[in-house]
């Protein structure tokens, strides 16, 4: 993936560039808002990572201008401001996701991989399929190898989100935000219990475990 990182903290930037490189991504870096905007305008990136507070031009304004110009490149906004209002302001300006500092690198990586449009399945798909597991978003039916699986509404949404992002790591915080719409902080193992129940329903008695735990990061569904 080709990524543009607009971040004024040199140390944080060089760490991110190195880590993204190890994860197999090419990263360009801009240290201020004007340069960042110029680079985003002139080149084609898969994802933009933009710090909210930047010298010369703030991140929100960059995103707004890009969106006004019809640039739909996915944007992840980084910010130390974590209140709901700040988050709403960032997303309203056209940001696709909002990550509050300090964050874990695995969290950032998982989020940009989910954001990148190149590998995303079509939003319009009504049936998601991974291995022998299929989920029909309209009839709300879940089957594995032709065998119907009964899920609670919440488990259905959990599985739907995982399958939509099949093959990508999904963190616990992402699950909380997208499945529960929580931006606050329950104990992390709350999610783990839900996941082990879901696993019990879809993987029990099958040779291949579709729902996998990614150590230190989160969960992933794939065959």
């Amino acid at each position, binding site marked *: 993936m080709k990524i543009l990182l607009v971040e004024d903290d040199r140390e944080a930037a060089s760490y991110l560039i190195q880590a993204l490189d190890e994860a197999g991504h090419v990263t360009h870096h801009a240290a201020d808002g004007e340069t960042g905007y110029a680079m985003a305008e002139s080149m084609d990136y898969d994802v933009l990572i933009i710090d909210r507070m930047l010298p010369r031009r703030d991140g929100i304004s960059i995103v707004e201008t890009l969106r006004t110009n019809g640039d739909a490149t996915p944007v992840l906004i980084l910010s130390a401001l*974590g*209140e*709901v*209002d700040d988050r709403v302001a960032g997303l309203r300006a056209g940001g696709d996701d909002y990550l509050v500092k*300090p964050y*874990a690198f695995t969290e950032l990586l998982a989020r940009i991989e989910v954001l990148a449009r190149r590998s995303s399945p079509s939003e319009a798909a009504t049936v998601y399929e991974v291995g022998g597991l299929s989920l029909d978003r309209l009839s709300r039916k879940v089957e594995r190898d032709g065998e119907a699986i009964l899920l609670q509404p*919440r488990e259905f949404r959990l599985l739907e989100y995982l399958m939509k992002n099949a093959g990508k790591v999904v963190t616990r915080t992402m699950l909380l935000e997208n499945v*529960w719409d*929580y*931006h*606050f*902080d*329950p*104990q992390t*193992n*709350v999610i783990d*219990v*839900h996941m082990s*129940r879901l696993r019990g329903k879809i993987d029990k008695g099958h040779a291949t475990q579709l729902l996998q735990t990614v150590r230190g990061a989160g969960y992933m569904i794939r065959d």
Partner: protein
Amino acid sequence: MRSLPQLLRTTSVRLTATFILIFVVFSVLLLGIIAWQASIQIQRQQTADIDREVRLLQRIDRTQGLRGIAVAVQRLANQPGPGIYYLGDRAGLFLLGNITDVPDQIIFEPGVYSFDYERPRPFDPDEEGEAERTQGFAVVRSVELASGLRLIVGRDVVERRGFTAIIIQAFLFGVAGILIFSLVAGGLTARRILRRIDTIGATSAKIMSGNLSERVPVTPRNDEFDGLATNLNAMLDRIEQLLQGLKEVTDNVAHDLKTPLTRLRNQAESALRPTADDEQRRQALEATIAESEKLIRTFNALLMIARAEAGAPSGAFAEVDISAVVADVADLYTPLAEDSGMSLVTRIEPDVTLRSNRELLGQAVVNLIDNAIKYLASEEPREGRIEVGVERGVAGVRIVVSDNGPGIQEEDRQRVLQRFVRLEKSRTEPGSGLGLALVDATARLHGGTFRLEDNAPGVRAIIELPAR
């Protein structure tokens, strides 16, 4: 004390001065109109008197001849008072009267005149001796009688002028009196107002110089200044309370964040130990990350409490379905509770809504259920039971989370609401000691209360939020 120019700039003094000015201008106008009207009235009266006497003397002239008119004029002239009489022969020469020195023009050309003259005698008959001649001013009417004699009848108006002078004098005294009275009254009023404002000013100066416990004195008069003082004092109480809270937080943060920071540092150091092998280094670094994770959570919790205590921006308040929020949290925790061998029961009245902050309320309920699970798990094995309820009361909304765990001693129930307070038996449990502080701050942000009650056994945590 203020200097004079400073004093003159104050609002109360300027207001008083304005009122005095208006008052004096109106008094002057009023008295002026009275004096003017009175003098016109006197003038008319005198003219009428003169005309009447002239007509009388003309009749006497026609009916009684020279002797009659002479006697009549002489009698009138001898009366004390302002009357002026002159009777001349056909050639205008003085025959009799009480004035001799009259200009020829007045004698020969009939009409109305006014002129200065020498007054031949004092009008006071009691006064003896040589007649004192004084300056007079006369208004007269001159006529030629049927017999050809010349008659002049008039009035000395020095007396009338005297009357005007008396009015003006009275008028000046009046104005001076009014001026002095209003200056004194205005000055006293202004001083009283200034003194009360100065009291408030002096108190704020003391507060600015650092003495935050100072308060504006409130008098029993209960006027608008007392209203202002009461409000100022309430504001100062709030500020003092906030500062006190801030100080406690700073102290606690210093104490409670240094411990994990030390652990963090120790773990990083142990990873750098030359004797450490790869596996030990990896473990040490993982511990470092876990520790910093905990610090971030503590930090976030602190920020959240601070926001709730500072009063969240009104934009963060919306109509929230409390029933749904609480049911969602309960739903999130049910699997965890069940896996830990507890039951989580809900008693949620549907469609309870309230203007509130969804994030903070959600986090508050999360914290309460988290706590309940944590303390039930620390107990020796038995049937743990958590009840989560929402009910609509008379005054608002009640959110209740109760458990049958170890409970909290009565003397500790207030204390555990403070930041970083952790009871001895929970020291070993994971947690920051901020959970209940956030619940308390959230309840207060919504104008409500949070309290812990004995559930015999266990704890009943009650958030009461008033309807707005």
